[in-house]
Every structure is written in C-alpha cells, then in structure tokens.
C-alpha cells in the first residue's frame, strides 16, 4: 500500500464511512420487516433482500432496516412496518418485491403513504 496523501486519506475515510453507516445511528426512519415463521414462509426474506439491495444501490444510510417477529396478522404476510420521522407507523401487507420498491419510492423517499397496500396505521402496544 503506497503512503497516503491528504486527498487519498479523505477518499479512504469516505469509503469507510459508508461501510460503517449502520453503526452511526443517524436514522430519520425505520423499515421493519416481520420475520415470524409465517412471514418467512410467505416470502419475507425476499422482501428483506429487496430492501437491502435497493438501500445499497441507492446509498440510503438514513433509514434503519430492522426486523421483528410475527404481528399476528399471518394471513397478510409478508408484512413490513414503515416509520418515518414522527408520523405514526404504517403497516403494509401481502407484499411482493415490486410493491416493496413502490413503497420505497413513494413513502420512504417520497414521504407519502401508499394507500393501496397499507393495512393499518399504528402499532400494537408492547408490554
């Protein structure tokens, strides 16, 4: 490895920053995929892969992507919950990769709920 110049160090820093974005925790919103047995059987992992792929391609680092268990609405799986800023969480069901991308474009990036796939607003209470 050749010795760094100031310019090269900057480039190295930027590359490492991208690599470590998960750890910085500066998220403006959250996408939660429901990974219960019902969700996995209905294709939740495919939905998850779609999001991870798109996040990476589009360099999205300000949305936390995480998972949770079954939400109790097994017939609507695969499901995700989208929480952007202070708005109440929105649950989407019966997803396909195409629907997921539409939600990404219109809701997560565009900020407008996709009514046709939404199954509810709010979240079950914990505890």
């Amino acid at each position, binding site marked *: *490895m*050749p*010795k*760094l*110049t*100031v310019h090269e*160090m900057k480039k*190295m*820093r930027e*590359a*490492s*920053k991208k*690599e*470590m974005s*998960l*750890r910085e*925790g500066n*998220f403006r919103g959250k996408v939660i*995929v*429901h*990974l*219960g*047995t019902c969700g*996995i059987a209905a294709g939740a992992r495919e939905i*998850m*892969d779609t999001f*991870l*792929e798109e*996040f*990476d391609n589009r360099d999205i680092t300000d949305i*936390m*992507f*995480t*998972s*949770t*268990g079954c939400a109790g609405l097994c017939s609507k799986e695969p499901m995700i919950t989208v929480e952007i800023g202070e708005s109440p969480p929105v649950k989407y069901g019966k997803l396909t990769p195409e629907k997921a991308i539409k939600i990404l474009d219109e809701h997560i990036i565009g900020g407008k709920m996709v009514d046709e796939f939404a199954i509810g607003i709010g979240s079950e209470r914990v*505890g």
Partner: protein
Amino acid sequence: MAKKKRIELMVCAGTGCVAGGAFQIMEELKKELKARGLKDEVPVVATGCNGFCGQGPLMVVIPDNIFYGWLTLEEIPHLVEEHFLKGRPVQKLMFTPPEEKRPIPLLSNIPFFEKQVLVVLKNKGIIDPEKIGDYMARDGYVALEKALFSMKPGDVVDEIMKSGLRGRGGAGFPTGRKWQLTRQQERTPKYLIANCDEGDPGAYMDRSVLESDPHSIIEGMLIAAYGIGSSNGFIYVRSEYPLAIERMETAISQAREYGLLGKDILESGFDFDIEIREGSGAFVCGEESSLIHSIEGDIPEPRQRPPFPAQSGLWGFPTLINNVETLANVPAIIAKGAGWYSSIGTETSKGTKIFSLVGKINNTGLVEVPMGITLREVIYEIGGGIPGGKEFKAVQTGGPSGGCIPVAMLDSPIDYESLTKAGSMMGSGGMIVMDEDTCVVDVSKFFIQFTNDESCGKCVSCRDGSDAILEVLTRISGGTGKEEDIDFLTELGQTVKDASMCGLGQTLPNPVLSTLRYFKDEYEAHIKEKRCPALVCKHLIRYYIDPDKCVGCLKCLKICPVSAIQGELKYVHIIDQDKCTKCGQCLEVCPPKVTAVSKVSGNDMESLEQLPQIIPCAERKKK
C-alpha cells in the same frame, strides 16, 4: 452474490470480556450464523472495551442498539435463531437493573450509559480497533491533518494550553505548560513518551483506551510531537497488558503502512515514529523519572527534579512525557477547538475523566464523565448503587496514592481540587466503592502493603516509613494496638509525605491519613475496645452459634474445614474457638430461616453464652 449486511454484532473484546470467553462466544456466533445462511447479512465485529464490564461477555446489536449481557455459549443458538433469523429480540439476555423486573432493551436507555459524556472513549464499541479505516470513518486523523496543514507547531501548543487540559495520570499538571516547556528547549533530539504504566489496583482506564482505540493515541502523539518538535516517540506499557500491546502493535504497523508514521507524513515534511517499550510491572515506573530510567535500561528509581524531563529527560535530552488518556484527548481538542473542550467541566478542571468503577457497586465498569459531576451521580446513577441493600461507607479514589471519601462528601464535585481537599486525589481514575462490610483499618493495611512492596527503596522515609506504618496497622488490626498509635500514625504519615522524593512516597500515607480523618472512631474501637466494627479483622472477631436458634442440622459441622464444630443431629452445635480459622463458611451455609451463626467482635465475644457441652435442641427449647 453475497447478501447485504443488515445487522452488525458488536462483541466486546476488551480484556475483561475476553477473560469471560468473548472469543469463544464470537466463534459460536459465527458458526450458528453460517449454519443459518446469515454469515454475510449479520457480520460479527470485535470491538474494544464497551465499559459495562460487570455484564460481560456482552454485545450490542446494530442498528437497533440492543444490549445483550452475560452471554453464554449455550444461549447462542437460541439467540441467533430468535433474533437474527426470526427478528425477535431475546429478553432474558437483556440488562435488567437489580431489584427490577423489566429488562431495558436499548443501550441508550440504560442509566449506566445515559449519563456519560464520551470524548476519549467516543469510538468504544463502535470501531474495530484493529482496522485503521474504522478509526478514520469516525473522523480519525482529521485533527492531524488540521495540525499539519493549517497550524504552526506553536499554535498547536497554544491550543492545548487554552483548552485547560491537565495530566490524567494523577497529579493534574497543565498539559499545555509541559508542552511549551519542552518546545522551548533548543537541544535536539527531543523525545515523546506516552505513559501507560497503569499500576493502581482496580484501575484499567489506560488499558481500555489502548485496547479500544489505539489510533487515538497515535494521533495524539503525532500532534504532540509536531507541537514540540520531536520525531521519536515511545509508548511505555506494562507487559501484563498483552492484548493492549498486540492491538497497539497492529495499529502502529498500519499507521506506518499508510504513511501516518515514518518519514514525510502525508507529504507534509514532518517525520515521526513510535516504538513500544514494555515494562515488567513495577509500580514506581509510573513515576516519570523512574520510567525514563527503565527505558534507558537502568534500575527504575526516581531522581531529584529539577531538571525536569522537559529539560533533561531520556538520555539527557528534552522529553515530553504524558499519560495515555491525556494524549487521547488531544485529537478532539485540535479538531473541535479549545473553546469547545473548555466548555466541558469546571473552572479549574476541564473536559472529561475516565474512571474504573469497581468494588461494592452494582454496575462495575469503565465510565467517562464530565469533570464536576458529583460522586453521588457516578456511584448511584451510573453505578446503580450498592448491591444487596447494603449501606455505602466510602469511596476510594486515586488508588494507593489516594484516600477514602466518606458519605458526607458524596455531593462534592469530582475535580482535581475538590478531591485533594477531601484528602484524596484524582489519581489515574480508579474508584473503589466500599460498603458497610469494609473495615477501614483493613483497607489501609492492604494499600500500605501494596506501596510497601512497590517502594523502590531509594528514600528512607518511603522504604522504612511504609514498613513502620504497616507494622502499626498490623498491630491495630491484630488487636494489640496502643492508644498512642493514632497520633504516631498521623505524625509518621506526614513525615513520609514530606521527606520522600517522588510521588509514590509523597502519597502513600494518604489511605491511612484520610481514614484517620474520617473514621477515627473505627481505629479507636480496634485499639480501645478490641472491636472491629465492620467485623473484618480476623483477630478481633469470632464466629458464634446462638444456642437458642441452632436446630442442629449439621450443615456447618460438615463444611468446617478444620473440624472445629462439635455437635450431633438435633443437638446445639458449638464452635471450638481454638481450632477455628475464621474462614466464615459456617455462616454462609447456615440456612436463612435459622441464622444461628453470626460474627461477633469486642465485648460480645465474652458476654455471649458459651455452652460447656452439646445438648439436645429440644432440651434447650424447654428451658
């Protein structure tokens, strides 16, 4: 195609957690993740010390920030299946505060972390200390670039001076003044030494900085060297810190590879390189002139100052010697400015300080807090108070050189002056919490034993003075103390302070003097009443079986290692005091419903009823 990363498991790999099996836990995690096809989605990262050592082995799940502690190999398959495959965090591995039922899932909501202010430890648990890229991503080497390309060496020294940073090794000398004094010297070469000879019992701040963020020390040293005009640096670290040394070596070789150490750093024309020197763990080597002798290959004994190391140090050349934590503060000060730094802390003590919070405390660990925070906040809010509902008695700060601070002073702020006024000192940051079951005579004896062993022997006052103090303390705890011993200890302690040359001798009487100041009545109880109020000093206590409570269950009789207990089933047991070694196992096994065994001291030892021979418990009840 490899799956995208969605979760990172930040497993603490500081010395404490490694001793608890962190490396095995990591292997198990990797194995279980691979078996479920999650290897690429969920990578495992080894970090430096997370700080919450009492919960180790531990990990933090990114991005959710879920904290899992007390991990065991058996739990890993279940954890991987539930959380990382099915998305259900596992409650039983989360942190639950003592006396409470509900776990706290998120690290950021755990009170231990909430009140901390991270400057030196800002990268702990977030970076892999073996990756220079991780350090850079957290704005590492930004300060170096700023110093080299937009500041003159004199500006760098001025900035440190303005920040108000003071030495974190103990004495609190203004860092900027030390830098300036070294910078003013005309002779070359000049040397720079990072002092990581951390020797206080129970203190491990410096080790953690080396283990969790080694590049921050390299960057701090580079900036210091640029400021004072040095091109040779040493890191002096004890060989008992193998993991810290290994990580430091890795960091140094990475920095060399990328041209951040060596000739013409970042094409600026500035040269600097670092060597590690391992010490063999003599406490006196933390004293700067002894440390310099040790690097030179001589016997580590202190020498008279002046001349100060800044004037004549390593091999007689001007030498700047700073504590590791002091140097680790430097990059942040240069990057964010002296004004920002001096806004944290008090009038005379700026910035933050790392403490290792140990002893009788619920949340054992490493904490970084702003100067000026009170002892009560650190012990009760961050530390979670005293375990088992016991009463707080004292906190010992500054290690063997420090003193004990009593409950009445819990609300005093933590800064250099307040601690010194209380008869203790900041020291390097050890904070040992003591509860009601701690005997101050016994604690003082422990510390004097330590400094007596570690005294290099050059000064009579320290060598023989510590012998004499130890002898008197041993006498007091052994029940043969004399009334004049208290005055003698006070006078002798003061003499040792006044007549010793280096910090070791000048501070070694502090544990005795501070406890004499705040707990004189306990010394008096030992001497006049032959009573140890905390029931610790073996010569002054006895184990006693209450004939009215004993049910004759044989438990204590069976466990006694020296067969000092007489008895039969359903007969009142008796302890033969001549045989008893006071190990205390009888007290531990006596059932909670019975509590017949107790410790007694002083008059109680004579006044309590002693049965001449064993009698049936039933007979006793009739009476």
